[in-house]
């Protein structure tokens, strides 16, 4: 995987990573701030994501919408917030490279003078509508919220999703936004990747020119929290859905830690495509489920592994959960066969290459350079990352599955159509979502 790059650190601590690629006359400017919903506290959940919205509302020297000049220059741009980080990116024609640097640096250096109560209130309304649209008004939209709330203790920063609670969003204030910016949005807590049609020397000089004068901020202490689930949790949620669905979740090794790649491959063997074990058994052969999915949700403080299955009409979630347990137990006993290993490695490798076809955007080369730099301090971790998959063995998958999932305490959440509790797997209580 040949992604040549150089990394530099400006005087104020900002990481600058450069990657040259002249195939297309475009430049990707990609900026990560190492702050996400894990930096929030109970009572103010959803704040990091709300703050991301405020970053698009103008800064001191361009106190108007962020999109306007960039769209006028032919840019594509966006941002996103996860539990662990917030990213912003522009993909611009080569001739607008400086404009993108100007805009990103102005909001890093000079956001607050332009951040007014009117903007704050407007974007809070927008985010509340985002929450309604993507969570409250969507079938099963509150299930993952309920899952993480049960999997993590109330004061653990993964106890809530990035969208946060509606009450917390309503209670948040403009003053808190100012304090949040001062604490997290500064050069030493950020990483700037520039990829595409650039001359690296020129790009570095420009990055220094636009970002170099921004004052360094206070060091951000890493969030350190362990999480365990002392005992199984079994919950019920009634929702406006037609078919019941079961959500199983376990704690699992953190991103890039031993076992993380193995569990990613285990999720493929279990539920990626029609040849996967759960699909074959539950959907294809027995036809007790209409769809299955499995994910290793890799995160900084600790990951969680999920298996999700939707019941076919007339089937119960108890039946599904038993079938899932049987398949997982078999895999934990025998391990994957050589066909399964070949398929999952081929898919992992191909997905790796597909992601690197673009210089910018979510998942493109600039985003990946920043991910590696932010989480492990090595922007060029591509080959080592892929090696984690190539070096994985059938026995490694088997033992990781046996160690972290099978027989370990988990959250089991049944989501059933309103009034059809008899379709749920056994439960001890109702899920609570804020």
């Amino acid at each position, binding site marked *: 995987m040949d992604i040549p790059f150089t990394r530099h650190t400006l005087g104020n601590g900002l990481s600058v990573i450069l990657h040259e690629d002249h195939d297309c006359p475009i430049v990707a400017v990609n900026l990560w701030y190492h702050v996400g919903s894990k930096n929030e506290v109970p009572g103010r959940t959803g704040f990091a994501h709300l703050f991301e919205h405020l970053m698009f509302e103008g800064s001191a*020297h361009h106190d108007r919408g962020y999109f306007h000049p960039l769209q006028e220059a*032919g840019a594509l741009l966006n941002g996103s917030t996860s539990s662990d980080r917030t990213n912003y990116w522009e993909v611009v024609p080569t001739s607008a490279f400086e404009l993108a640097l100007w805009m990103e640096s102005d909001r890093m250096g000079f956001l607050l003078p332009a951040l007014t109560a009117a903007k704050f209130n407007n974007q809070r309304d927008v*985010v509340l*509508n985002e929450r309604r649209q993507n969570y409250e008004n969507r079938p099963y939209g509150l299930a993952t919220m309920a899952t993480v709330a049960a999997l993590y203790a109330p004061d653990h920063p993964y106890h809530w999703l990035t969208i946060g609670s509606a009450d917390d969003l309503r209670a948040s204030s403009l003053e808190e936004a100012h304090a949040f910016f001062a604490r997290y949005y500064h050069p030493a807590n950020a990483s700037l990747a520039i990829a595409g049609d650039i001359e690296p020397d020129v790009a570095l000089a420009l990055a220094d020119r636009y970002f170099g004068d921004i004052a360094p901020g206070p060091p951000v202490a890493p969030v350190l929290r362990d999480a365990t689930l002392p005992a199984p949790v079994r919950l019920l949620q009634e929702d406006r859905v037609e078919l019941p669905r079961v959500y199983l979740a376990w704690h699992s090794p953190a991103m890039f830690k031993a076992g993380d790649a193995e569990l990613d491959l285990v999720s493929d063997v279990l539920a990626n495509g029609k040849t996967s074990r759960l699909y074959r058994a539950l959907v294809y052969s027995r036809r007790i489920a209409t769809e299955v999915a499995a994910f290793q949700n890799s995160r900084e403080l600790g990951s969680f592994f999920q298996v999700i299955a939707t019941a076919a009409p007339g089937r119960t979630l108890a039946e599904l959960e038993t079938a899932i347990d049987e398949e997982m137990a078999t895999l934990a006993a025998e391990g994957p066969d050589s066909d399964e290993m070949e398929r999952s490695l081929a898919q992992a490798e191909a997905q790796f290459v597909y992601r690197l*076809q673009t210089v910018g955007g979510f998942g493109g080369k600039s985003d990946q350079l920043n991910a590696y730099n932010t989480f492990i301090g090595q922007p060029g971790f591509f080959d080592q990352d892929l090696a984690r998959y190539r070096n994985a063995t059938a026995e490694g998958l088997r033992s990781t599955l046996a160690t972290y999932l099978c027989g370990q305490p988990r959250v089991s959440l049944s989501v059933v159509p309103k009034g059809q509790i008899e379709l749920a797997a056994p439960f001890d209580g109702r899920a609570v979502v804020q």
Partner: protein
Amino acid sequence: MSPVDRSRLPVPGTSPSYRFPEVRKVRLPNGLCVWTVEHRSVPVVTLVLLVGVGSAADPAARPGLASLTGDMLDEGAGDRSALEVHDALARIGASFDTEVGPDATLLTLTTLDRFRQRGLRLLADLVLRPRFDPDEFERVRQLRANRLRQLRDLPPALADRAFASLLYGSHPYGHLAIGSEDALQQIALEDVRQYHRRAYRPSAITLVAVGDASHEQLLADASEAFGHWPESDPDPTIAEALARALQPPAAAPARLALVDRPGAAQSELRLGHVAVPRSTPDYHALVLLNMVLGGQFVSRINMNLREGKGFTYGARTSFDFRRGPGPFQLQVSVQTAVTGEAIREAIGELRAIRAERPVTPQELELARAALTRGYPRNFETAEQIARSTAQLALYGLPDNYFERFVPTIEALRLDDVLRVARAHLDDERVTTLVVGDRAIVEPGLATLGLGVAEALLPA
């Protein structure tokens, strides 16, 4: 370097004109077109197989047939069972997708270049030699029935279905490709077999191959996989259905309709009317107009409903350009309490842009720049190039279409945009659909002067 001048924004320089890569076109003796493009930056190949027949060709009593047929292609083909097909796809790390739209069926397969020949042979098996096994058919039909059932709870899906029917009635564009629960029970395996025979003919297909190989290699591999497929005669029923889709639907009056969802957190809205086909000479001007109205973040609709009022997470408009007259529509999901007001604002914007607040020169230049300056980024990956190339085939666009896009947009004048706004947008003809909580939204709807909302049952 000098310190940054923060008193003004850097002005982007001019961009070099864009050269779309060469598309080489060859028609095989059986009538199948193979179009190849060399794209050497990453060892990846994307194959797009375009069948120029989609859901508009569904028989009136069998909506969903084209889509169900598409679903059956990878459920056993050639000498492979359903599971073996997917085993073969996984072994080459393929990313594979079948999409059935109103005008076309599109199979897209991306794989690493070293698996190019395997990918092509597999794709040929799916299209030429699907097994259509009865057991697999029953299973797939049941899965689709379950999927349709789940869509009853998805507001955007409810809205899309009801809106297509409101605008088009019994016209071929009046149903969604996925069909309906009732119709699904009527579709027999024999319907699927027959549809496949009629619609999947070599001369109805263009295979686009884009990747890290020469034209000659791409063509040779494609010919080897698809060249043996015997030619067959055009089918009159398909031809008749395609012709019908080109005609405008019966004129429908503006309507206000509602699908009741008690307790819904938001109202899912659709506003619009039947507009023009892809072949309209006004295409480029309408693309510009739509950018101003609702086609980008800084458009009027989004700035009003999201950034001004905070009613929604996002609002947009689109002209869906099809072979026949496609819909113009505004779509947005708004907080329940403001439903009436959001509709009033939306219709107001549609009226204003063709009357009291026409597109300004500044808005036009912003839209023009947004479309032209970033143009090359639309063609960065093999898949982007392959899908774009397939559009040329589907709509019969000239070879130099992508080369000419930027100059054509640059040549348009404000008058052109004002004219197409008056010609192709009509707030008087707008049909409005609300999927939301009737009890809460009704008082607001009553103040709109659009009459009483007719209740639609979720189909």
